[in-house]
């Protein structure tokens, strides 16, 4: 029997595939990026519908339920993503600041 949470997982996965596809069509993702995301979301849907695929992994990690494994994995991915985004934002901030400051000074030198 398919539970409500599994239907939510399926719908979420399908929505993310659609959303990734839109971004790909806008040429904001390369084909390889879209391909990798497609694989990721398809795996997400498969795991949502057939969680027993992960049973061997759940047992070997001494985790009580498959759902717990998904929650733990989700947190790990979330923390890693936040860290990565923070790093990129800081780098872009510094680049932008350098660019704006240099441009302001150069513009005046030309006067």
């Amino acid at each position, binding site marked *: 029997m398919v539970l409500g949470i599994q239907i939510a997982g399926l719908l979420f996965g399908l929505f993310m595939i659609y959303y990734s596809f839109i971004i790909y069509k806008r040429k904001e993702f390369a084909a390889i990026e879209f391909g990798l995301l497609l694989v990721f979301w398809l795996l997400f849907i498969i795991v949502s519908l057939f969680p027993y695929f992960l049973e061997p992994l759940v047992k070997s990690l001494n985790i009580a339920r498959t759902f717990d494994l998904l929650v733990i994995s989700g947190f790990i991915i979330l923390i890693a993503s936040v860290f990565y985004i923070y790093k990129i934002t800081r780098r872009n901030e510094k680049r932008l600041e350098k660019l704006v*400051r240099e441009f302001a000074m150069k513009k005046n030198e030309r006067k």
Partner: protein
Amino acid sequence: MKINNVWAIIPAYNEEKNIAGIIKKTKKYVDIVLVVDDGSADRTTGVAEKTGALVLTHALNLGKGAALKTGCDFAIKNNAKFIVALDADAQHNPDGIPRFIEKLKKCDIVFSYRSLSSKMPLVLRFGNLFISNMAAFLYGVKLHDTQSGFRAFSKEAYKKIRWNSSDYSMESEMIARAGKQRLKYVQIPIETIYSDKYKGTTVLDGAKIVLNMLWWRLFNSR
């Protein structure tokens, strides 16, 4: 470009109403008035240019620290010997500039302090006192007012205190670097007018400054 010694640097953000008055008063005491328009949406650049200031314009708003750094870098590149930094919101009276220059002949950096009178908003008074104690404890720099932006420093001092902060933390970073580099400093009292209570350092900025001060003490080698 003509070699000049004393430059006044005024970072400005949406200050079309105040900037002309500040420039006119400041021009009397320095060789060059340099306004750094930090991405204003109003006519700050136009008004400043019309009043006779040299103007650098940031295409985007980066923050006071970044604007002042742009101005200082430009001034040093053009042979400035002494730099006076003041705010564009008419909070600082440029008539005090000669006292800064006079003191600068005997030290590396001149800080200023506003009287902690009833005119200063209560939250600013408390925050300022707390940050001042932190600066004394962490860096050995004892100042009455760590957040006053009316300051002056020599070319040599600037090279040692050049900050990374792009926002209001810059004022504290300058103190931290001055303390670490053991620069000679003095502080002088100034007259202050609070014109806009929604501008300047907020409580959140204050919290960020305190955290930054700890960070610089623990992890910044220079």
